[in-house]
C-alpha cells in the first residue's frame, strides 16, 4: 500500500510581507496535504479482487477486521464495492474474521 505523503517539511508560503514590516504577521501554512493518488486496484498490474485471495484482502481491512473506508485507502468507488463484496464472502467462508478481539 502507498504511504501517505505527510508534508511536514513544507516551506512556509512566502508572500509579499513588505507591507507588514515591523508587525507580527500570522504565518499561513498549507493545511491540506496531498492525497495518495490513484486507486491501487484499478491499474493494469494490480491484483484481481477475489474472495479467496485472503492475503490481498487483509490489506484493506483494519486491525479489528473492519473494512477500511475508501477515503483512507483511496480505492475507487467501483473497486470498493467489489472489495466489500469479496470481503463479506470471505467472512462467510471463515477465511476472514468478522471481528478481531
Amino acid at each position, binding site marked *: 500500500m502507498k504511504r501517505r505523503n505527510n508534508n511536514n517539511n513544507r516551506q512556509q508560503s512566502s508572500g509579499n510581507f513588505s507591507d507588514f514590516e515591523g508587525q507580527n504577521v500570522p504565518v499561513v501554512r498549507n493545511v491540506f496535504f496531498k492525497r495518495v493518488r490513484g486507486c491501487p486496484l484499478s491499474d493494469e498490474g494490480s491484483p484481481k479482487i477475489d474472495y*479467496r485471495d*485472503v*492475503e*490481498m484482502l487483509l490489506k484493506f481491512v483494519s486491525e479489528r477486521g473492519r473494512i477500511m473506508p475508501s477515503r483512507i485507502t483511496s480505492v475507487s468507488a467501483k473497486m470498493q464495492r467489489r472489495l466489500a463484496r469479496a470481503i463479506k*464472502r470471505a467472512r462467510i*467462508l*471463515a477465511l476472514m*474474521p*468478522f471481528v478481531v478481539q
Partner: protein
Amino acid sequence: MPLYESTFIVRQDMSPQDVEKIAEKISNLIKDKGGRTFKYELWGLRNLAYKLSKSRKGYYVMLNFFAEADFISELFREYKLNQDILRHLTITVEKLSKHPSPIAKRDDKVKVVELEKIPAQYLEAEIIKVADAA
C-alpha cells in the same frame, strides 16, 4: 446454463479420503442432473477464522461447474442434509480462469483435480504482458 463456483467446508473429524469422496459425490450429482463439473480443488485442512460448529479447523472444497439453474436448490438441499458439510457458498461466475485459485497458488498441498477441459467461451481472457522493448 450458468456457471457456478461452489465452496463448502467439511468437518475436521473426517479423513482426506472421505473429503474427496464427498467432492466426487457432489460432482456425480451434478452430472446426473445434466451438468458438467470442470474442476474441483481440495484446499485441505485449514484454520477457520472463527469457531464454526464448535470446531476451529475444516476441510475446504471448491467446485467449478456448469448446471441448470433449477439444480441449485437441489444442491443446497444436499448440503443441508449432509451433516458433514458445515457451511457452503455458491456464486455465479461469468468466466473461469485456467489458473488455480489464489489459495492453490500459495499452498503446495492443495490438490487441484481437473475433470473436464473448460471450453473457450468460459475461459477468462488472459492478460498477456507485452515484453518491454529492449
